[in-house]
Structure formats: structure tokens, C-alpha cells
């Protein structure tokens, strides 16, 4: 099947997916009473007496279908509603918070995936030798560490003990002033990339100082998973007949591992890496909270705990689109890694 037609067909699937997701989430939120949902608008005890007015103002007591119809009507005109937790339209909130998370994902994902693939390959190639044991220990420790604990420890060391060396947040106060000035163009709202595009060294350096700890935290926890997956996949490949043939032909072990075994072992890793990237890009709540790196995960979490339905629905839509697109990309990547795979068809 032609690539373009395959992508189009897959994107068409978005329509029922989005409809299903929104009906499901909307239905769940309707299980909360109008008063419970009205608490989103309560910021002081004094407002309790006006609950009835608030409920009426936002139509929280209308039936499910009526509220959903209103919402979907807005969505069809490009209005995803109002995010009360951050006082801006939901669209704006997504575009406001996504760059921070995307920046984390863009920096962390390659690091996690490449390190995982490298260490996993090495561990498989040196099965039951010290290198294998060492990576296993790293994997178990990394996988066992609670994210919040690791994040706090890193913060205490690199911000506390080393007196402000690697601070939390996205930028220092001074650099925030620079990037919000008229002279600095926010191309992507990702600080590192914008700093490069603006040729601004101090902002780049400051952005890097702020992103290192969250990236390390995410990497330590996630690299273990990729590493173990790669190791087992590699071991399976190394046991295959074509590897025996390659070795019998007298190829060096390096060529056997890197060229023949690793390439075939990558398919499950690509699948998981796609999901890993999607998971990072749809927000890593704890890391974003610990390091005050306010991204889309932080926003979604705030919205969920405060029953900000418009925001939750907006996030669900974003999430659904993200996962459909990531699945699509992963499927296309399969064809590049394994020429036997055909889009929309079967393995030859």
C-alpha cells in the first residue's frame, strides 16, 4: 500500500477514537455531582454561599447529553473550552505547556533509547560476564528508584550541596526576562532550541543547567527498561540460525553483533521506544513537579485533581492524537528496519 494512503487511512481512525475517548471521559466526570464540579470555581470559603449561582452560570446541572453537545459544538468551531486551573483557553494551555514537556522528551528520549540499546547490546554480547552483571545491577537499581526520591536527592546534591549549580525551574529569573523581551523570538517556546535559533549563549547555558536534572531523573528510571528489553531481544537474535551462518562465514564478532543481530533485535525496542516517547511527551507529572518544570503533565494533573473538565478533555484529545501519531510513526519505522514488513499488509 502506498505510504500516503496508509497514513491517511490511519489518521481517519482518529475520528472514532476521539469521539469514544471524549464520550467516555465526559461520562466519567458526570458521575460527580454539580456541586463537586463547581468546586473548581471556589477559591475561598466565602464563595460557598454562591454555589447555586456558579452551578447555574456554568450549566453544571444540565443533563449529560446537553453538556456534551455544548462542548462538542464548541470543539467543532475550534474552541476547546476554558482551562480554569491556569486561566486560559484549553488550546492556549496545550500550546503553552507542551513545549516544556516536548523539550524534556526530545532531550531525554534519545538519551534513554540510545543508552538502553547500547548497554542492552553489550550485556547480551557479554552474557553472564561482569559487564552483564553490572548492567543488570544498574537496571534493577534504576528501575527500583522512585522518581520523586531520585529527583529530590539530585536536587539536594546539585542545587543544595553545590549551592545553586543545577537549579530547578526552566530558566533563572534574569533569563526569563531575556526570553520574554521583544528582542528574543520564541520560535518553539523550547528554551534550548530558541536560544540556539536566537544565537543567545547565556540563555542556552542557563536552559541547559535547568534541564539536566530532570533529564537525568527520567533517564535513570527509563533506561533500565530499554536496556533489559534490548538485552533479551538481542539474546534471541544471537541464537538465530543466520547469526550462526554469519559466524561460520568468519565475520568478526563486532560485525555479527552490530550489523546482523542488533538490527533484528531492534523491532520490539522501536515499539516500546515509541510508547516511551509518547509517555514522555504527554507529561511526566512527578518530574515536572519536583523540578518545577511546568509542562503538560503538570497541567493535566492539576486539571484532574480539581475536576477541570474542559482541561481534562482537552488533554485527552491531545493524548489520543499523540498516541495515534506515535503508533503510525512506529509502524512506518518498522518498514525501514525490517524490509520484509509492508504497510497495511503482512510480513513476507
Amino acid at each position, binding site marked *: 500500500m502506498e505510504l500516503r494512503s496508509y497514513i491517511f487511512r490511519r489518521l481517519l481512525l482518529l475520528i472514532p477514537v476521539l469521539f469514544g475517548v471524549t464520550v467516555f471521559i465526559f461520562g466519567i466526570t458526570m458521575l460527580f*455531582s454539580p*456541586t*463537586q*464540579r463547581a*468546586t473548581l*470555581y*471556589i*477559591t*475561598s*470559603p*466565602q*464563595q*460557598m*454561599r*454562591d*454555589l*447555586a*449561582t*456558579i452551578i447555574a*452560570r*456554568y450549566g453544571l446541572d444540565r443533563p449529560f447529553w446537553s453538556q456534551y453537545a455544548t462542548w462538542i459544538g464548541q470543539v467543532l468551531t475550534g474552541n476547546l473550552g*476554558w482551562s*480554569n*486551573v*491556569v*486561566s*486560559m483557553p484549553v488550546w492556549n494551555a496545550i500550546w*503553552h505547556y507542551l513545549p516544556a514537556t516536548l523539550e524534556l522528551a526530545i532531550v531525554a528520549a534519545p538519551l534513554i533509547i540510545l543508552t538502553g540499546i547500547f548497554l542492552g547490546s553489550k550485556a547480551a554480547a557479554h552474557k553472564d560476564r561482569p559487564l552483564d*552483571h553490572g548492567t*543488570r*545491577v544498574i537496571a534493577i*537499581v534504576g528501575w527500583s*528508584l522512585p522518581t520523586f*526520591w531520585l529527583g*529530590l*536527592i539530585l*536536587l*539536594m*546534591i546539585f*542545587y*543544595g*550541596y553545590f*549551592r*545553586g549549580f543545577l*537549579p*530547578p525551574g*526552566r530558566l*533563572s*529569573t*534574569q533569563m*526569563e*526576562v531575556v526570553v*520574554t523581551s521583544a528582542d528574543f523570538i520564541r520560535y518553539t517556546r523550547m528554551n534550548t532550541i530558541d536560544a540556539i535559533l536566537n544565537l543567545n549563549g547565556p540563555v542556552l547555558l542557563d536552559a541547559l543547567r535547568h534541564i539536566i536534572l530532570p533529564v537525568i531523573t527520567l533517564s535513570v528510571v527509563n533506561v533500565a527498561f530499554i536496556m533489559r528489553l534490548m538485552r533479551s531481544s538481542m539474546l534471541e537474535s544471537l541464537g538465530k540460525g543466520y547469526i550462526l551462518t554469519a559466524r561460520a562465514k568468519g565475520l568478526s564478532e563486532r560485525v555479527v553483533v552490530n550489523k546482523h543481530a542488533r538490527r533484528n533485535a531492534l523491532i520490539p525496542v522501536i515499539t516500546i521506544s515509541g510508547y516511551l516517547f509518547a509517555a514522555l511527551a504527554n507529561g511526566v507529572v512527578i518530574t515536572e*513537579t*519536583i*523540578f*518545577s518544570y*511546568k509542562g503538560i503533565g*503538570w497541567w493535566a494533573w*492539576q486539571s484532574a485533581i480539581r475536576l477541570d473538565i474542559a482541561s481534562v478533555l482537552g488533554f485527552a484529545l491531545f493524548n489520543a492524537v499523540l498516541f495515534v501519531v506515535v503508533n503510525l510513526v512506529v509502524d512506518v519505522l518498522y518498514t525501514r528496519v525490517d524490509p520484509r514488513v509492508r504497510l497495511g499488509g503482512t510480513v513476507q
Partner: protein
Amino acid sequence: MKKILFISLAMVLALSVSLIGCDGGGGEAIPLHNPDDFIQETIGDVDSLDPAWGYDTSSGEQVTYIYEPLLVYDGESTDVFLPALATNWTVVNATQIRFTIREDVSFHEGGSLTPEDVEYSFERMMVQDRGGGPAWMINLPLLGMYRTRSGATIVADGEDIDNAVEVDGNEVVFNFAIEFPMIQWLQILVQPWGSILDKEWCVANGEWDPASDPLSGEGWKAYNNPAKADSYLYNHANGTGPWKLDTWQAGDYIRLIEHEDYWRGSVPFNLVVTKFVDEYTSRRLSLLNGDADLIYVPRQYIGDLEGNTELNAYEDLPALQNDCIFFNFSIDPDSDFIGSGALDGDGIPPDFFTDEHVRKGFAYAFDYDTYIADAFLGEATRMGNPLVDGLLGYDPNAQMYSHCLTAAADELELAWGGNVSDVGFKFTITYNSGNIERKTGCEILAEQLLAIDPKYQIAIQPLTWPTFLDNIFSEDPGVHKGPLPLFQIGWLADYPDPDNFITPYMHSYGDWAYYQDYGYPSLDTKIETARYETDDATREILYDEICDIYHEDCPGIMLSQPLGRRWFTKYIHGFYFNPTIPGPAGPLYYMSKS
């Protein structure tokens, strides 16, 4: 292999434990960063920058930096005033007060302050009167009603709004619809909702325009009770205050910059930055690294910073706030929290707390000292009635229920003709999960009653905040109140007047009393008389009597008034505590950094 793993994990643990002790929190010198700026790290974002909308502390704090009212408090006082945008004022009679408006004052966007701006600011607030907003304080004296609506119907008369605030030359005249104590009115005007807007700028940006939608017509009603997003002012600001809005990155920070043309002259900080940082460790390290000048410290962590000589700590600051356990006199019969719903040892009847001996028994059973020690680490003052320290009528020697299990047992013996002590009771009390104070209060009450008699059984259940609130209220308030048998919650002053505490707690239509089904006509009359009394001495006597009634009726277990703290780096000077100033930073214009 197992040995290697064990050693690795042990090393990680040992490293982390040792690092916790050397994370820079040991009192090392704090460097001076950002010498011209004030940076605070706190929790809770701003809701809106519209002075007519914001009703939360975070919004109020930023509004007071950006906008200004007609007058301000003199230092720590809550009843002595200094001129601000008004140069002086004259009380004409009990229903009229005139303010002379200051000249040569500029708004941030360049406009000049005029009396018409003042008139517009107050009229706009009444026109807008958003549901759940602060406009009721303006409405009550000026229109004689709390809200401009009855249900969804606008009942306020546009002409009345128009006549309530008038311009007379360089003066603005407030005409009250009812006789209202002027001291209360001045206290209301000092708060964020008394901020003055630039009329031309507002109209130019789509806000209500009295010229095109005059109060004599119907058009103004379209601006009543808007959604937040409908107001341009929720995220735009143009005041006369010492700082102007530069950037508000919602959820992240709000940055204000110096107003170069400020009418009082120079401004102490070039930038005022409020960062919203959820994680306490991050905030603490920012303070100790000099990246923040002030942080919010949850009470359970105050020991972390205690004794640090690099910090200026201000302690025992009495907030105009209290907390109380309210008895529900008319519990929803279908409540899940009252067991069998009858006095049979497996539940309580819906009217269980209508018997004063039950209420007094519970009040005697509560261990107040332990509550203050455990929930507030000793930083709270006991109270016997709703009036907190700092208000007219506050009496530190007011009658209070002491913790006395014998007296509690005696009262419960008398309750419901002796049936309570015969069969006992069983029901569930709740708190909003994560609230340590309320959890402690519930635990103390349950433990102490169980200590009196094993038949007195109370279960404790945490609820999410929305569910907790949902259970306080009733879906059918005309018939009964909510499902919770009792609930613990607090009150924060709108303005420092005793009525702002007495009415919510004791008037039939008070914010909490209503949901308890407490209150009766003779008490309501007394509260209203005290509210509108203009003579302080007479008011004080009336509030003494009302507080005695509170003690005698015992509609709730009055607990405590919390004492606050502030932690600044040693470079910040000039802080003084006025409990009416919203936000932790305090009187920022009078503070400095060096």
C-alpha cells in the same frame, strides 16, 4: 550477584541519607542574588487580576501591587487610615461619604486618574457582580442587597447603581442605600476590591461602557455575572500602583516591573516576581541559595529553618482566621454517615445535634491543647467564639469549654433523656484528605469520646475536597441540610470587622450557620443591630452578648486562631504585619533589600 546488588542498594541508601544532612540547609551564608528584585516562591496561582473578580489571597496580593485603593491602613493598624488615591474624605452622614481624588496620578498605560475612574470602578463592580465574587461587600451598603440577582434574575435597579456613586467636581460621593458604619466601609475600600481602574482603558478594551450601555437602560445587564474569560481584565492590568504587570505565565510565575511614573516617587524593587513552586524542598533550597527572598513554608516543616541566622523570621503573627467544628442540626435522613439513622447504638438520628447536651458534651470532650500542639505545633490561640484577635469585641478571657471528660460524660448523660448514655451512638465524621489540621481534629474528637464510653463510636473517613464540600451542602436545602453530621472548616476575614465573622457563624443565613440549620429570629435581629451600629462602645457590648449566646448555644466546637510565620532572607528589611494585607510578602512598597 545478590551480594553486589545488596551492596549497591546499600550504598545508594547511605549516600542519600548522608546527603539529606548536607544539602546546603545547615545555615551557610546566603548569597545576595538579584539585589534590585524581590522574588518569592509560593503555592497557588492567581485566579484573576480583575479586582472585581479575584476573591483569593494570591489574586488579592498581586492586585495590591498593581492597583491602589482610595486609602490604605496606617502601618499595622486595621482602623486608622492614610490617604492613597484620595487625599481626604468627609463623612457627611450615616449614608454619605465624600472623597477628594488625588491629582497628577498616572496609570501604567499613561492615562491620568480622574474622579470618573473611581465612579466607574465601583459601578463596574456592581454591574459585574460575578457569582461567588467579592462584590457583595460593595452591594450591601450601596444597594442594600448582597447580590444584584435573585437566582438568575437581575433585581438590582440600574438607576440605583448609578446614584450610588456620583462625581461632584474633584470629589466622589458614595450614597448608601442603608445606614452603614463608616469604619466598615473604609475597611472594605482598603481591600483589593476597592482598587481603582482606568475607565477609558477598560472601555477601549471591551469592558462595560456606561456611554453605550447606560445604567438607565437594559444593556448593562449583559455584563452581569460573566464568565472569567469574558473579562479583559482577568489577565491584563493597568493600575496606578508601584508595579505594573509584565508577564503572567499561568501556573509558573507572575512578574511585575517598576512603574517609573509612580506618584509617590521611587519604588523599592525593579522586579517583583512570584513563582509558583509546588515542591517544598525546591522552595527551601531556593531560599537558602538566595534565589528567593521569601518562600511559603508548610507548618510541618518549620523546624527545617528554625534558628537559621541567615534568615529573618517573623513568628506568632495572628491571622484573621479561625477554624471550627460545626454541628449539623438537620442532617439529611438519607445520609451515609449516620449509621442506622436512629438512636439505637448503631447510628444517630438526623436531629441528633439539636439537643444542647450532646453539643456541650462534645465540646467538653475535645482536647484543645493537644489539637493546637499536634495540628499547629503550638502556633495557634484557643478561641471560645468566632471573634478572633484583632477584631473589635475580641475578648481573650471569653468563656470557653475546657477539656473535661467528666463534664462531657455528665452532659451526655443528660442528652436525649438519658438515651445517649444508655445505647451509645455510632456515626462517621470526615475531613478533606491531605488536611492535617482537620484530620487531627477528627481523631481527637473520636478518641476522647471513646475514652468516655466505648459505646460512643465515631469512624473517620477522608474525602476529596470536592466530595467533602458536596456533603456539607444539601440538594434540597428547604427540607434539610447536608449529609455530614458535623464538619470542620474555617473562615478568613474579608475585612477586619466582627460582623464578618459573626454573621457567617451565627446568622440564620450565615455562610456556615445556614448549612448547620442554626440561628433564630431574635439572634438574627441582634446580629443585624450590631452590624449597623455606628458607636463602637455599643457595638462592643452587643458583640459581648452575642459571644455569650454562642457559648451558651454551643452550635460548634470553636477551635483556634492560627498564628503565622514569615521567612525572609536577611537581606529583606521593613516587614511589618498587618493581617489584612493579602499574601505573605506584606507591605512590599515599604520594604527594601540590601
